[in-house]
């Protein structure tokens, strides 16, 4: 109720006078977006909206046809142009609570709302398409009466909203020091340096401001600031919550990736596409990786997760729903997750769209992948494979007549015999790259006959690391038999993409198996001589579910897979039934004619060994191409109609022929459609997010919900103008720069002229949690600007208890690192950051709360952090014995408030220091104690945490 509670009496009067006399003449048409749609949506749609299943009395009020249809009892809810005949008005205004809508004692509509509905019906009850679904307008900037104020097109859009509301342009620009502080925090999350300030204050020219802005945009701190905004949308955390708060492996790599993308100003379309399908796009080298794009897809897997779900299918469905919620809100501004159990109650989003997206995500698996850091690795592995092939040709190797004959065993079914060397399997790292070669390379560099039709991490070299995954398959029989061999490596069966057995095996015990660690005698033997073994998995509880097999060689060992089959018998088929062995032969394996090829193989292998090793990271990978049916009432045990995966009606192209097809999971298609320049959702949500972070108030106040229950934009023209800039290929930095250089950005905020339908600058904004903590670090001198890498361990207090609590607390001051580098543990969130509204990482949070509570004062007064940093600052100042109190006070004011102290403030500070010195018990540390006390007080000054 902020807008209304904020108007003080004289202003309220002024506003209504304006509204009555000038701004909204009685004849003005009702604004459907503002006055009608939200009322119908909030008050009527839950029973009379898009969801057919819960519709009452057969009445549908979200479409013209529905609202004007003749109902069973002969009446019509709405008769366009005829309020008296419109039953809806009678029901909405009925005195009898039994008659009145909304029913069951809910509050009736207000008189203003009723009047608006009446007028709208009188005017013909025109249903406009919900604004967020309309195409973006590319309108020219409006002309404004006060031409002296605007500096740019954006300013003209902005001023037009004020003039339409009867408001003048803001009377004043902010002073240069405050402007620099504002821009510095907004662009980098840090206060300006004293040098920057002094330079700008001595020459506050436009060119100097632009130069400052450009430096800030180019600084690494920019990505740390704006990357953190994105992490809010991605519900970024590094643990999984639930009972043991297990870690999300290498989550910090996603954080570094996001920061890097913002710093290098990756085009928004590419950045967003990488979130959804970075593993499927053209590779993009960055962060020391040959392809960093897959890192973006961790976005899909940053939610919480529970160990040992009794119903693994429901668990998967819940996790997918969490991801859909994030995709919907963060990229589309649409609450898709509301359509899980039924058509969306308020927005035109059918439940089929939810399952189209669920289908794409169910065919996507979460992989702790091996990503190459060396650009030569892939080509060297390919070279080595070719050389092995060439050697095999020279040596006239004939492939083994390899076949799995298990089909002959009653009740069993062949699933995969890798006869093509696992062409359909996905692999990461280079260990499995040479699987289809007929020859292998032994440790001593000699060539050997290899088993054909296997997937083998040791074909080229046992030292390589990597993983391989089978296509997903349905579990139709109780037992799964895998014929494998190897050492110091892993074989896993993953059910319904459930992976957490790696942390806690309960209920999934044995789904992840370690192949024996090699002992000394085995290690020296040729892998070819190892015995095959059959690993049998009892899947009794999972018949009907989906599964895949993963082979992991994470160093020091090897693994080779021959075949797998499903059967009803616990006893695997006899070994001779698995493989008809060896017609493989070589005419001349060891002769001189293969030496040349052998040398090539060994050279490539040795070069590969010299490459920098791959890293592990969490990424997405396609696993299958099944369509997912609708789950009736959201139950994964109750299937309804099938839905083609990745085909969302709200993203449908107007031109069906232009619709891209679905390949694999369909994520690539989704990425293409969501980032299509002609589809408005993404561009509007992104533009609005940028505006919100720069002004503290969005053009749409509900940045994650542009639906019927969300707010309408106070200027769709401005929103579309900004969105079009992005849709046309503009980057985040370009848009941010354009906005920061507007006149609007430097306006002095004025509480008195804030209005709901027009732009206005806020008089103050409270800094967010990260900025406050980072500013404390910087002021105190404890700041460590190092970027990236594993997170600083979470600081744990006595009040933070529970299972999964790390054994050790992190440092009080976070080692001086910026807040974005502090570990985010879901069950042990930092209380200081929480007090200042860092969001709970549950789902997308595009707009943080800005609460104003005593806990914040207590955190600044009594937290270990505030005391430790104040002491650090105080000690540092005390040690600067050459400087006077005056100059130290100057530097403290610049550090805390980005300005010089006024004379009365200086006097107060001097007096305060005197008092503290007098009170100090330890004479040798008097100065340090006095400056520590002053530093501590400055942290609690309101000007420290508020931005003007």
């Amino acid at each position: 109720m902020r807008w209304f509670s904020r108007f003080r009496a004289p202003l309220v009067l002024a506003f209504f006078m304006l509204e009555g006399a000038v701004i909204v003449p009685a004849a003005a048409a009702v604004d459907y977006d503002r006055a009608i749609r939200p009322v119908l949506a909030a008050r009527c749609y839950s029973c009379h909206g898009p969801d057919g299943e819960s519709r009452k009395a057969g009445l549908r009020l979200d479409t013209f046809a529905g609202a004007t249809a003749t109902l069973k009892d002969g009446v019509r809810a709405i008769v366009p142009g005829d309020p008296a005949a419109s039953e809806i008005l009678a029901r909405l205004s009925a005195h009898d609570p039994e008659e009145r809508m909304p029913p069951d004692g809910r509050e009736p509509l207000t008189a203003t709302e009723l009047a608006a509905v009446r007028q709208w019906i009188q005017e013909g009850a025109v249903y406009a398409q919900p604004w967020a679904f309309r195409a973006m307008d590319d309108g020219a900037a409006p002309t404004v009466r006060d031409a002296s104020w605007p500096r740019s097109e954006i300013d003209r859009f902005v001023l037009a909203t004020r003039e339409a509301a009867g408001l003048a342009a803001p009377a004043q620009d902010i002073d240069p020091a405050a402007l620099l502080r504002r821009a510095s925090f907004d662009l980098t999350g840090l206060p300006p340096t004293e040098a920057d300030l002094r330079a700008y204050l001595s020459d506050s020219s436009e060119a100097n401001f632009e130069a400052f802005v450009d430096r800030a945009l180019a600084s690494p701190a920019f990505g740390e600031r704006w990357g953190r905004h994105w992490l809010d949308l991605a519900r970024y955390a590094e643990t999984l919550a639930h009972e043991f708060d297990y870690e999300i492996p290498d989550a910090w790599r996603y954080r570094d990736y996001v920061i890097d993308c913002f710093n290098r100003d990756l085009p928004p379309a590419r950045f967003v596409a990488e979130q959804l399908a970075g593993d499927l796009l053209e590779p993009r080298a960055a962060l020391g990786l040959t392809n960093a794009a897959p890192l973006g897809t961790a976005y899909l897997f940053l939610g919480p997760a529970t160990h040992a779900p009794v119903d693994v299918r429901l668990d998967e469905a819940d996790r997918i729903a969490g991801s859909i919620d994030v995709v919907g809100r963060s990229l589309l501004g649409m609450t898709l997750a509301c359509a899980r159990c039924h058509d969306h109650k308020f927005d035109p989003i059918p439940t089929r769209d939810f399952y189209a997206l669920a289908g794409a995500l169910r065919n996507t698996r979460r992989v702790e992948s091996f990503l190459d850091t060396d650009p030569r690795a892939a080509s060297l592995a390919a070279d080595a494979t070719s050389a092995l092939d060439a050697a095999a040709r020279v040596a006239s190797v004939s492939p083994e007549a390899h076949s799995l004959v298990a089909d002959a065993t009653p009740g069993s079914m062949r699933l995969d015999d890798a006869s093509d060397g696992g062409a359909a399997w996905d692999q990461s790292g280079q260990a499995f790259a040479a699987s289809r070669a007929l020859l292998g390379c032994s440790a001593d560099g000699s060539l050997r006959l290899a088993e054909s039709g296997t997937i083998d991490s040791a074909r080229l070299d046992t030292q390589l690391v990597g993983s391989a995954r089978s296509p997903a398959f349905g579990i139709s029989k109780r037992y799964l038999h895998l014929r494998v061999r190897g050492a110091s490596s892993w074989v896993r069966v993953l059910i319904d993409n459930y992976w957490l057995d790696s942390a806690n095996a309960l209920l999934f015990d044995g789904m992840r198996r370690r192949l024996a660690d090699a002992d000394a005698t085995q290690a020296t033997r040729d892998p070819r001589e190892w015995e095959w073994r059959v690993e049998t998995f009892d899947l009794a509880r999972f018949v009907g579910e989906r599964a895949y097999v993963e082979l992991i060689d994470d160093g020091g060992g090897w693994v080779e897979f021959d075949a797998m089959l499903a059967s009803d018998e616990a006893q695997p088929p006899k070994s001779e039934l698995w493989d008809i062995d060896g017609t493989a032969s070589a005419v001349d394996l060891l002769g001189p004619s293969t030496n040349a090829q052998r040398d090539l193989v060994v050279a490539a292998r040795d070069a590969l060994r010299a490459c920098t090793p791959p890293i592990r990271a969490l990424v997405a990978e396609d696993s299958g191409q099944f369509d997912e049916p609708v789950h009736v009432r959201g139950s994964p045990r109750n299937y309804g109609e099938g839905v083609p995966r990745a085909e969302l009606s709200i993203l449908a192209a107007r031109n069906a022929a232009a619709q891209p097809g679905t390949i694999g999971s369909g994520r690539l298609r989704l990425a293409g459609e969501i980032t299509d320049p002609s589809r408005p959702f993404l561009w509007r949500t992104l533009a609005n997010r940028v505006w919100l972070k720069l002004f503290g108030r969005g053009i749409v106040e509900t940045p994650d919900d542009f639906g019927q229950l969300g707010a309408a934009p106070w200027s769709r023209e401005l929103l579309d103008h900004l969105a079009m800039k992005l849709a046309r290929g503009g980057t985040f930095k370009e848009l941010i720069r354009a906005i920061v250089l507007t006149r609007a950005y430097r306006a002095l905020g004025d509480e008195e002229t804030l209005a709901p339908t027009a732009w206005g600058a806020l008089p103050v904004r409270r800094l967010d949690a990260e900025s406050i903590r980072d500013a404390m670090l910087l002021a105190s001198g404890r700041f460590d600007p190092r970027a990236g890498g594993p997170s600083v361990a979470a600081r744990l207090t006595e009040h933070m208890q529970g299972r999964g609590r790390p054994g050790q607390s992190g440092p009080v001051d976070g080692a001086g690192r910026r807040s974005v580098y502090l570990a985010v543990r879901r069950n042990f969130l930092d209380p200081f950051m929480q007090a200042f509204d860092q969001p709970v990482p549950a789902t997308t949070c595009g707009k943080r709360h800005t609460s104003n509570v005593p806990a914040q004062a207590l955190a600044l007064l009594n937290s270990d952090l505030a005391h430790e940093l104040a002491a650090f600052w105080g000690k540092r100042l005390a040690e600067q014995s050459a400087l006077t109190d005056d100059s130290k006070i100057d530097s403290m004011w610049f550090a805390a408030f980005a300005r010089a102290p006024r004379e009365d403030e200086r006097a107060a500070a001097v007096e305060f220091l005197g008092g503290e010195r007098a009170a100090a018990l330890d004479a040798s540390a008097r100065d340090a104690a006095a400056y520590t006390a002053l530093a501590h007080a400055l942290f609690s000054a309101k000007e420290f945490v508020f931005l003007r």
Partner: protein
Amino acid sequence: MVALAGLFGREALASDAGEILAERALGATHLPARARSVIFLYMDGGPSQVDTFDPKPRLADYNGKPFPMTMAPTQFNNNGNTLASPWKFQQFGESGLWVSDLFPHVAGVADELCVIRSMTSEFSEHTNANYLLHTGSGIPGRPSMGAWCAYGLGDENNNLPGFVVLEGGLIPPGGLDCFTAGFLPARYQGSVMRPVGEAIADATPREKLEAQDRKRQLIARLDSAFLHEADAEAVESAIKNHELAYRMQAAVPELASLDHESKETQALYGFDSPDPNTRHYARECCLARRLVERGVRFVEVTCPRTIGDRWDQHNDLKAGHEANAHAVDQPIAALIRDLKRRGLLESTLIVWSAEFGRTPFAQGSNGRDHNPFGFTVWMAGGGVKGGAVIGATDEFGYRAVENPYQVHDLHATMMHLLGVDHRRLTFRFGGRDMRLTDVHGRVIEGAVG
């Protein structure tokens, strides 16, 4: 307009009188409030219904024999035979309420209890079930019931938080997320209060009060100049909150000190019990009373660490349940008696509940696994009908068969007793008017006195 208020994010508003207004989403309760505060006695891990308040003599007939009903999948998938209760049940009070030997003290206040024997949950696993019990949703990150109450009703004491969690030694599985404000403003999250050490984080000055006072004066000078320059309500509120913080520093130690309780009261709770866990829980229960006395809206009391693993007796049911019951029995009975004699019981709703119950068949030979299909919770005080039994499980105590209720119904009933229509306390988030009970919940009418 509750939802609209939420949409813009509420801020502490400074009134002309210079006081922080009690923050509450509801101007007035929807219904006459029966209770003013809630004390939620969380029985971490899941006490067994058939060993506490839901006697099933038929189990003895089948003891050691295969369980005669179809068994659903369980958490550990290690189901044994039928396991009769090792404890005897007797009837107590005028109501003749059945209580097992595990709770001799609680049995003494049987006529105050309203026992619901037909509660159900949706999950067999602690954390999902815990999130459901605490937030109405099986996933982490949603607002806790205490946060909802504080949001809807505000609190009646500006010097204390509206939602306090007394830490007994065991934070529930699911962690502090069980007490989160979720998408509600952070101020509504549960403040963890410890019966030992610093009671509430950051509420104790780290320096002498004179030193703090000198800073306070300097800060006030700087702040008044800044307020003059940036004439904004947010700054004004922050200044008032700063003053309030000083007052909280004084209020918290006064609250946490139990020394002024009479010897008789201390003995009633069990301050002098030979069992250290009883002593610990006694202090928690006594603190809970002091909190509601001071107007705190919602207090959750967590269990002490007894023999290690809460009420979660996957094996050795007898020893585990005895230790857990002994820790809480006397303090709970004392809390009820103490509130009653102070005239506070009728305005304080006590809820005793776990995330689920336990299987009537064994896990292994002498434990019980999780059972969400039928378990017992009870309420007392705060407008509840005492000495009543509601609903029933089948003859083996496995599934609720008569008037089965959901956790949402428990929430709806708690809200109802606080004067809130659970359907009408909402917060606009993510395109929906969210509520504690989601789209579910019906008041358990039989429980309302």
